[in-house]
């Protein structure tokens, strides 16, 4: 038994030193899974881009339960992976536990702020991207009424809504924005049936462009918008392809860029809070062959102009989460 233990310890030590020498980065996907057509897949694409460009290798794991968060973090840290990138705010607590135990390992968390000396917290300026799609919605609307459908009623989603309304009002001060939240429990992220009903209700009130920030509920929103012949706007990843010709654009969060940059930095990853906004390509709107006919050159020009002004700091989009208040309705 003692012999066995010694052997095991030696083996573990060997593995540890070998891992440390290689210092492969690691990527942990959240419960949504690697191919979720959204957030996690975007992270995967970023990691793949890094791997192709550098010829490097990275370790990865797809979580299947809440309990594995801390376990996965510790395993990669013990293994000598550096940096360790994780996708999703849900890692917040686990990372705050684990990070102090491995001061020599760098961590990067997306969509959440963890204040530890060896953690990079990447947050996105969703309000800036939402402002741009709000402008496009106002320009594409014939009725002067547009809609917003949020998932669960939390400050992050109000941040989307507030940026969107500001963008709409910037184009058309008289435009009306109908806002609905799907619910107040996590079930609100996965209720496409209710998403559909809200969409139909908004359409009957005159909305002809509807932006969703509602996760799985949003599939119902985009579906109903397409069925009823109005335009939808996707969120997080490029959802234009879901209903070609019926999705005006998508507000994209470049999670792939965040992952790519963190992996590129390697051991020298700068810690602290990193804000991904329009200025550094963190958010934006999607333009591809599926919505090329919907976005006129004039529309694109004015949105790009606004994007430049936001990026340079000339135009300030109010962030709902800065004071839990929105200046426009």
């Amino acid at each position, binding site marked *: 038994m003692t012999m066995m233990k010694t052997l095991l310890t030696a083996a573990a030590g060997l593995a540890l030193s070998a891992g440390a020498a290689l210092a492969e980065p690691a990527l942990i996907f959240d419960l949504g899974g690697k*191919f*979720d057509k959204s957030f996690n897949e975007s992270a995967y694409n970023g990691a793949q881009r890094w791997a192709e460009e550098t010829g490097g290798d990275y370790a990865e794991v797809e979580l299947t339960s809440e309990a594995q968060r801390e376990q996965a973090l510790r395993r990669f840290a013990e293994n000598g992976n550096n940096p360790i990138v994780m996708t999703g705010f849900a890692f917040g607590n686990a990372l705050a536990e684990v990070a102090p135990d491995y001061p020599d390992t760098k961590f990067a968390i997306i969509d959440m702020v963890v204040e530890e000396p060896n953690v990079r917290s990447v947050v996105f300026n969703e309000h800036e991207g939402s402002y741009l799609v709000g402008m496009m919605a106002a320009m594409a609307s014939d009725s002067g009424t547009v809609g917003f459908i949020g998932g669960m009623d939390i400050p992050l989603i109000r941040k989307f809504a507030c940026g969107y309304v500001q963008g709409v009002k910037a184009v058309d001060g008289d435009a009306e924005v109908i806002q609905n939240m799907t619910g107040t429990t996590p079930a609100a992220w996965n209720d496409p049936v209710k998403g559909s*009903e809200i969409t139909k209700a908004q359409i009957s009130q005159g909305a002809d462009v509807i932006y969703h920030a509602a996760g799985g509920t949003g599939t119902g929103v985009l579906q109903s918008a397409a069925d009823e012949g109005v335009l939808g706007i996707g969120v997080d990843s490029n959802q234009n392809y879901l209903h070609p010709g019926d999705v005006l654009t998508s507000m994209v969060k470049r999670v792939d860029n965040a992952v790519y940059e963190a992996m590129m930095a390697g051991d020298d990853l700068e810690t602290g809070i990193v804000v991904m906004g329009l200025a550094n390509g963190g958010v934006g709107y999607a333009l591809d062959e599926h919505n090329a006919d919907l976005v006129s050159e004039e529309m694109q020009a004015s949105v790009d102009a606004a994007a430049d002004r936001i990026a340079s700091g000339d135009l300030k989009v109010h962030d709902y989460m800065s004071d839990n208040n929105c200046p426009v309705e």
Partner: protein
Amino acid sequence: MDFLTLLQVLDSTVRLATPLLLACLAGLFSERAGIFDIGLEGKMLMAAFLSASVAFFTGSVWIGLLAGIAASVLLSVLHGLASITFRGNQLISAVAINFLAAGLTVLIAQAWFREGGRTPSLIGGARFEPVTLPLAETLAPVPVLGPIYSELVSGHTILVYLALACVPLTWWVLWRTRFGLRLRAVGENPAAVDTAGISVVGMRYGAVVICGVLCGIAGAYLATGLQAGFVKDMTAGRGYIALAALIFAKWRPWHALGATLLFGLLQAVAVRYQNIDLGGVVIPVQVMDALPYVLTVVILAGFVGKAIPPRAGGEPYVKER
């Protein structure tokens, strides 16, 4: 609120009430026969998933519907096996079914489609299209009645009309046929039924299978009628609201129709109006979402008549000790 808005809210009510109604009637059959079933949610979810998947593979929504019903019946029989044959605890067996469905659907969907636990969007014949009733277009200009007919009565999928037809059918089966009398008797006093030489086990299995069929239709309606595909956990608690409606209706079919329409109306109003301003008093949308449960508690507490469940409900039948 103008007339057209009212019609739109009522139209939305019918769409939202239909899955509740089907699940509620499913629970009615099962519980009238003495088998409590809080697994309506899981059965609907499984049916929603399988109907969407099969409809996607075959391109036929009808084959999808059959697959959904088959999946739901299979879970029903599993529940029956645990609670009738092996006399297990009916609540625990049903909770297990809910967990099983929540996990299995996402797991299989991921293995088949690799889209993060959802099915691809259904197109064309793979989903139920709204049915336009005869003369809907011609009658539309008629004042008042015209819009009611063309907007509210017409333009739903076939499953909505099927669900509504199930209400009188359920009443007729349970109160006007020998099978129905025996089924209700099994839920009240199984020993008496047994003495009369009728198989209690057989009757109860019959009831849970009917329950499975109705849940299957409800799930298929969610995924292929209201939506164009399955998304994980898409039933979003409708099975539990249906149970609340069943208690609210005091285990009677016509009352079930009323209860589910009322709950559907509350949801439709919540969807349409975020906050309702009643002359100075603002009712937040959360009140509307919670009202079905609050009403059920009020009923259970005995403020509005008494809700008496079938007497032998929840008790496995033991022939001889």
